[in-house]
């Protein structure tokens, strides 16, 4: 077993444990912190896949922005103060569904022979990535900026005061 493999299994276990914490934790804040843990582990997986740019974006946008927004949502809806069960009563069915899906996905992954272009992920050139993003993918890029703008305006309209409120 090489060093890279040990690191990979360590990170994979961290990501899965974090994910487990998100779905089984009894405390909403612990769930949110587990999510941050998983997001950082996924960023580490991106580095193992030789995509550092994506790892950077993941840490900045997800672990930085999205996680803070989720914590804000938890605090503002006082999810922690309300003494209540966090899960509904369909746990066994949901567990069966989740395990069945996992079994199908893993069986399919193992049974398929995937085409191979590279034995080892090669590093992506930042310049070439920017070139691809701003030349052949410029239209989706602009549409994405429009999506962000609309989401921003929509969030302000939804969360802001209604007419008549101060």
């Amino acid at each position, binding site marked *: 077993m090489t060093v890279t493999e040990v690191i990979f299994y360590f990170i*994979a276990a961290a990501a899965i444990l974090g*994910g487990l914490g998100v779905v089984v934790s009894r405390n909403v804040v612990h769930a949110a912190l587990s999510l941050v843990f*998983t997001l950082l582990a996924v960023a580490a997986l991106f580095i193992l896949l030789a995509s550092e740019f994506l790892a950077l974006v993941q840490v900045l946008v997800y672990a930085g922005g999205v996680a803070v927004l989720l914590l804000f949502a938890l605090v503002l809806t006082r999810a922690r103060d309300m003494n209540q*069960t966090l899960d509904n009563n369909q746990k066994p069915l949901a567990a069966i569904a*989740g395990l069945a899906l996992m079994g199908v996905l893993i069986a399919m992954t193992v049974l398929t022979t995937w085409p191979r272009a590279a034995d080892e992920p090669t590093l992506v050139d930042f310049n070439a990535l920017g070139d691809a*993003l701003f030349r052949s993918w410029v239209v989706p890029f602009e549409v994405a900026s429009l999506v962000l703008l609309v989401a921003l305006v929509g*969030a302000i309209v939804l969360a802001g005061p209604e007419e008549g409120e101060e």
Partner: protein
Amino acid sequence: MIPLEHFLVVSAVLFSLGVYGVLVRRNAVLILMSVELMLNAASINMVAFAAYTSPERFIGIIFAIFIIIVAAAEVGLALGIILRLFRNRRTANVDEVDQLKW
């Protein structure tokens, strides 16, 4: 070196955990977190396939960037909706919000 299948298995486990979370959680914010798990699993798949099977590496990474963009927009909007819901109904539990109109 790590085989492609190992990345795919990690992503499959994360996705299934997300499905379980969406089905089992009552709080809207926790459901949103489970959705984030599923989106991350999809990103891992995209990047892993791009790294191992495609000679043109950018496409998977660009897809993952768009997934992250859409996830950020989605979380912002969902926060607005959940806050509005909490202000109107004093709850963020999706099973208590069963009316389309009141």
